């Protein structure tokens, strides 16, 4: 009897929660509860952090030697690239001022909220719980970055915590473009937790090594939640078949999405 009541109660909760809007009474009660539990979670996370760091240190040592060599080469290449980019960026700025160019909102129009990742919300889906919420100015669908690259967006919100849905979650889709050629497409989750650059027609030029960034939106009535130009990842492979209208493009994120400790949420 008791078990039956509890099961019916669970189903009723689930049903009402599923149907009500995000400002409904159950969501409100959950926000209050989450706010009350949050200090305990943060405390526990702080206690565990030295142990986690120690594990990370040993783990890092094992892979450091091989990575060191690779990073030295990459560093030399990136130094040259950075110089070229700085020159191009300055020229770009000068030209925009000369032309009085009206651009889409960029990263400079947003404020950053840096926050800690508490952990995954559940083993299902790729969602993370973070220790900042609406009290910090975060809004639903706000873009979330790590190491300067887009990693996801805010999909659940309480005053003190929020849920980030990662790009690798199957429900995620972000409009993006190739910085080299301007080819537009959608970033979606790919096979085995990878990312794919979908809906790119065969006539567009996208090749291995291209940097993909958020496209933003140029339609004032349908503004994008993401500013234009946030790096997402680098194309690792492209292919096409006669029977498919679009290219098959795989890319790898600029950051390790399975091991995020801290993220930056962009707010306006």
């Amino acid at each position, binding site marked *: 009897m*008791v*078990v039956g009541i*509890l*099961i019916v*109660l*669970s*189903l*009723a*909760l*689930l*049903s009402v*929660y*599923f149907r009500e809007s995000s400002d409904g009474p*159950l969501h409100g009660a*959950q926000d209050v*509860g*989450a706010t009350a*539990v949050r200090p*305990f*979670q*943060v405390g*526990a*996370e702080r206690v*565990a952090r030295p142990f986690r760091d120690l594990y990370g240190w040993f783990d890092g040592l094992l892979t450091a030697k091989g990575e060191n060599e690779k990073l030295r080469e990459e560093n030399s290449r990136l130094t040259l690239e950075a110089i070229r980019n700085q020159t191009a960026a300055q020229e770009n700025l000068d030209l925009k001022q000369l032309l009085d160019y009206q651009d889409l909102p960029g990263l400079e129009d947003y404020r950053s909220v840096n926050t800690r*990742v*508490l*952990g*995954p*919300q*559940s*083993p*299902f*889906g790729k969602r993370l*719980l973070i220790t900042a919420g609406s009290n910090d100015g975060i809004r639903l669908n706000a873009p979330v970055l790590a190491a300067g690259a887009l990693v996801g967006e805010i999909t*659940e*919100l*309480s005053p003190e*915590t*929020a*849920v980030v849905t990662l790009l690798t*979650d*199957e*429900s995620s889709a972000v409009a993006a473009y190739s910085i080299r050629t301007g080819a537009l497409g959608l970033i979606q989750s790919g096979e085995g937790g990878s990312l794919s650059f979908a809906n790119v027609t065969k006539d567009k030029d996208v090749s291995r090594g291209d940097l993909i960034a958020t496209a933003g939106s140029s339609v004032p009535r349908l503004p994008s939640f993401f500013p234009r130009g946030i790096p997402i990842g680098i194309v690792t492979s492209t292919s096409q078949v006669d029977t498919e209208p679009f290219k098959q493009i795989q890319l790898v994120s600029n950051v390790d999405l*399975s091991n995020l400790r801290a993220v930056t949420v962009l707010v306006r």
Partner: protein
Amino acid sequence: MTLDVLKTFVLVFAAVVLQSAIVSSIQIAGGTPDLLLVTLVAVSLLRGAIWGAAVGFTAGLLFDIANLGRLGETSLLLTVAGYWIGRYGETTGRDRTHAPLLSVAIVTILYSAGALALHIVLGDPVDAGTILVRALIPSVVLNLALAFPVYALVRRVLGRAEWSPHEVRLLG
């Protein structure tokens, strides 16, 4: 009775906090330990089916609140899990030293399958291959590693089961 309720609530609350803040981010060989489930197994084995169901419901509700999950989702799964383990503890599993290990192993598998089914019913995109093939065995092993220490701790806090040999001797 009231003291037992209080002790159980503290245990479950601690398990929820630890699971959401620390344990859920530990990933070994693709699996993640579930401290909350293992704690529920221990409480249910020691206190029976009704307690198991009630504790499962409370634990699930607390976890969904702390994790901003869908309210009722984890409660539903843990209520059924708590009741089932409690029944096993009251009947076949009583006095058996391997009961915590066996319960943890079976309930981890059933819980994963149940959670997967529930997510599919709710229309969530889920990767069944990863959950049932790649992550399940490491998760069972990790939960088994937690089983005896957690069971020992819970038994120390709550005391022996009401149907334990110790109390049977007293009655006799």
